């Protein structure tokens, strides 16, 4: 039937268009040679269409497959990542294009293209990308419609009106399914290696890293606090990593902090009832850690919260993630006990002046909280200067910084302080994360940028537990209270390496407004679409469903979705019936006809009204008078002048009804 129809003309061009728009987004990210191959295949198919070359034979096809395989091998060798998988898929689809000859071949190709489009969402989830990918999927479906739509009219976009009507019908159903479909965990575990570089704070940390981050106005994460629980700005310390190993140059986290084994168990968690909570929407970093205030607790298994209050994901973050944490605002310390070795560790050499500085004070009997106060006072009093352009310190980072240059930024101060504390035998560690945040346009959430990256100190004393100390606050209070921009205002080094960051032009109210408004839209998108998960689902639906369980969700989805589908069926039937309504007198006649047919007096095909009524009158002599009258009036209504028919019908209807009643009565009485 339709199977062996050659694909050509408009249908072919739409299919090729779908091919192009589906592959283009992938080609941007894939090696140039593969893009060339895809382009060549597209050109080949066009040449076939224009009659320049024939369809390839078996040998040529085999050669093309072998060449593509060789190309794939040359590009990737034995690498296996998600990128190579996509790349393989792209090559396969491009080769398939050459085979598409008949209309029936389109379907498989279009299915491949749609799936390719869907996989792009694994890499990109922004609003613009989503719009682009949705457009590509719609073009794929439209190419399918071309094979099945009326061919009579409409030009290149024939069927576009029907197509959009169909798609519009889909929208409410898709919404219902999206909102209600129960979310569950992966069926089997994947490690998605998108091959993207890691961003944000890394787990090996040299002071320069933060200076580099401070040049980026990219978003790190956003935080929304539960109503009324937004703490004071001086408390916005987002802990991410603990660096407890120092080799004289770099700060690292020791192995036991990196593992997730030290997860808080239920017995160590306080009751979460009535605690305020906040939701963090974190940007993909390709790393496994998240950020949280001290003393936060998670209810989910992924991410988990460690004994030291660190957030850990099971897999590297390859897409925006949303997590919710409860926290205890009134408790400033982290309770976990110190690690005797790593929290006191110092490199074997270096920092001799610093060690001496500590020994002097210990010898004088200054220890514990007094010593810490001394250190903080040292930073406050000496001529320390906060700058993003510290001088080079090639010999000894600690001594040169503390006693010679005295110019640097947060990680220099924090590193120096940890060194001084440990030298005096106080367990201390460097904490890396972010400090600060920018309220959103409507103040409902905070935006934390990469330039908010910060490092500070946590020290442990038996009487206080782990407590936060921030030497930077002593040197440059504005860094903590107003943010980086104000702190380095005189220097002009804020985002100095970034030419066109919108953040730099915040002086213009319009730019600032636009930037924050766009962020709000984006946040809504990430929160309600990209980050929509079982937690969001619960938040959204608990007021309506009571308990948000998979069963309830499925039930609600089926009821709502099923209702819509049933509505559509009814609409289709009703539309089909519309306009078919016969005039009242004819319906009356059909009723009579049905009654007669039930008694074995069916109307023969082609039998005229008059002949039929005549037959009926013969079979039921008692009804013959009424029947004849009925026929006469019916003929008068329908066969007199066309012009006044509705009026005549209106006038005659009562009489017609009366006669039909009479006929039916006498038929019922009579049994022929």
């Amino acid at each position, binding site marked *: 039937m339709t199977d062996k129809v050659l694909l050509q003309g408009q249908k072919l061009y739409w299919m090729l268009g779908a091919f192009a728009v589906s592959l283009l987004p992938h080609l941007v990210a894939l090696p140039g040679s593969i893009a060339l191959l895809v382009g060549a295949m597209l050109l080949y198919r066009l040449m076939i269409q224009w009659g320049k070359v024939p369809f390839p034979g078996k040998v040529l096809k085999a050669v093309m497959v072998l060449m593509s395989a060789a190309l794939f091998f040359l590009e990737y060798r034995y690498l296996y990542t998600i990128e190579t998988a996509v790349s393989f898929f792209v090559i396969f689809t491009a080769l398939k294009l050459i085979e598409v000859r008949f209309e029936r071949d389109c379907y498989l190709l279009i299915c491949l293209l749609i*799936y390719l489009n869907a996989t792009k*969402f*694994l890499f990109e989830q922004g609003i613009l990308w989503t719009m682009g990918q949705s457009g590509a999927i719609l073009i794929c479906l439209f190419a399918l419609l071309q*094979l099945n739509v*009326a061919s009579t009219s409409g030009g290149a976009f024939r*069927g576009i009106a029907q197509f959009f009507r169909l798609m519009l019908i889909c929208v409410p159903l898709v919404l219902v399914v999206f909102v209600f479909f129960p979310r569950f965990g992966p*069926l089997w575990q994947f490690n998605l290696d998108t091959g993207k570089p890691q961003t944000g704070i890394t787990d090996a940390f040299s002071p320069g890293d933060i200076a580099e981050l401070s040049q980026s106005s990219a978003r790190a994460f956003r935080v929304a606090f539960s109503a009324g629980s937004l703490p004071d700005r001086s408390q916005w310390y987002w802990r991410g990593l603990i660096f407890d190993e120092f080799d004289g140059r770099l700060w690292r986290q020791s192995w036991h902090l990196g593992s997730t084994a030290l997860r808080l168990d239920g017995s160590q968690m306080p009751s979460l009832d009535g605690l305020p909570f906040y939701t963090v929407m974190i940007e993909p970093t390709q790393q496994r850690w998240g950020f949280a205030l001290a003393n936060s607790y998670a209810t989910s298994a992924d991410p988990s919260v460690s004994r030291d209050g660190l957030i850990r994901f099971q897999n590297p973050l390859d897409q925006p993630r949303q997590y919710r944490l409860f926290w205890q605002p009134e408790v400033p310390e982290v309770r976990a006990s110190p690690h005797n070795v790593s929290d006191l560790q110092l490199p074997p050499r270096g920092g001799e002046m610093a060690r001496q500085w500590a020994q002097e004070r210990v010898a004088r009997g200054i220890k514990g909280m007094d010593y810490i106060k001394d250190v903080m006072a040292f930073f406050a009093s000496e001529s320390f200067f906060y700058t993003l352009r510290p001088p080079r310190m090639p010999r000894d980072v600690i001594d040169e910084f503390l006693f010679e240059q005295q110019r640097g930024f947060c990680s220099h101060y924090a590193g120096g302080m940890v060194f001084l504390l440990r030298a005096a035998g106080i367990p201390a560690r460097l904490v890396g994360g972010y400090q600060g945040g920018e309220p959103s346009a409507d103040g409902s959430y905070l935006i934390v940028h990469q330039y908010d990256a910060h490092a500070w100190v946590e020290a442990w004393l038996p009487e206080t537990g782990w407590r936060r100390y921030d030497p930077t606050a002593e040197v440059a209070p504005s860094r903590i209270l107003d943010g980086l921009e104000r702190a380095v205002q005189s220097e002009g080094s804020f985002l100095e390496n970034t030419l066109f960051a919108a953040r730099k032009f915040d002086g213009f109210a319009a730019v600032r407004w636009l930037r924050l408004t766009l962020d709000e839209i984006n946040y809504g998108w990430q929160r309600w679409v*990209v980050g929509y998960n079982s937690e969001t689902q619960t938040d959204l639906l608990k007021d309506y469903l009571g308990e948000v369980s998979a069963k309830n969700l499925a039930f609600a989805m089926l009821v709502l979705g099923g209702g819509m589908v049933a509505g559509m069926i009814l609409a289709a039937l009703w539309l089909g019936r*519309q306009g078919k309504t016969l005039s009242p007198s004819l319906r009356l006649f059909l009723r009579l006809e049905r009654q007669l047919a039930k008694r074995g007096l069916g109307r023969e095909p082609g039998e005229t009204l008059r002949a039929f009524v005549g037959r009926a009158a013969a079979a039921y002599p008692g009804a013959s008078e009424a029947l004849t009258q009925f026929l006469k009036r019916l003929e008068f209504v329908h066969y007199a002048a066309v012009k006044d028919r509705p009026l005549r019908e209106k006038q005659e209807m009562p009489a017609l009804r009366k006669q039909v009643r009479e006929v039916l009565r006498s038929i019922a009485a009579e049994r022929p």
Partner: protein
Amino acid sequence: MLIVDAIKGRFDAAFARWIERRSPVAASVRLGLGNIYVFPTLHGLVFGAMVLITFVTGVNYQNSLVLLTSFFLAVVFIVSILAAFANLSGLIISARDSEDCFSGDMAVFHLVFSDAQGAGRHRIFAQCHQAEARGFDCVGKETQLSLARQTHRRGRLPMGRVCIDTRYPLGLVRAWSWIQLHAEVVVYPRPVQGERMAIAGGDDSDSPGQARGEGDVAGLREFAQGDSIRRISWKHFASKGALYVKDRENPGESETWLSLDAYAANSLELRLANLCYDIVQMDQSGRPFGVLLHSKVLAPGTGDAHRKQALRALADYQG
């Protein structure tokens, strides 16, 4: 193979009975819930598999947008089921009278699709036994579709079951309906020139053979407006360059009786074919003729109605 064929035969018969019950022969059929069937096509199953794979991808990578895509595609599939149904629903199909034909010619059935809604229907196919499926679009209130079917023997050829189907909108599902309409084509025997023996009954002073032999302008008059084209003597047109028609009122012409028994052929069908040939010839000559078919007698006459009556008598003749 025999067993398979037997099972297939049984199945076909059962299916035919079922269709017979579900869609009895009628003057017109209205497509709706009761007689439209919907099922995914092979392409639809491939599409469904793709949706499933997309869904699993979304779940395993915990990617909300991939999940959303799979939901959207699934809904598109469901809506295209509805759209395919709606594309057929409400159509009223009736048969228009078809022309008679000779055996061996194509019998042509005319289907009329009325769409009171007038909104337009897309790519509907109709198939009648082995007759070719034809795709068409209903655009106005009424669309006519002709289905041609090869004829092999004289008689009355019913249209039989007609399958109306559509794959609109995306080719993923097929909606179809089996309908049966009161429609038949009267198939005349195939005209075959035969040998006539003695003439049975009637005035046989003139035979069709002689009638064909006319060479000059005798019995002809000039063509005038309103004359049937069939009566034009093309032979005279070729030689004289003017149009002449065979004169109906040709004096001296008398009635001819054609009888089934007058032919020498052994088989009845062949004799009917011979008779058919002579009826056609007589009709073209324009002279009155009568037909004797054993018990059935057609009084001599001329004209299209007479010809049709005679040929239909041949088509319906039972041994």
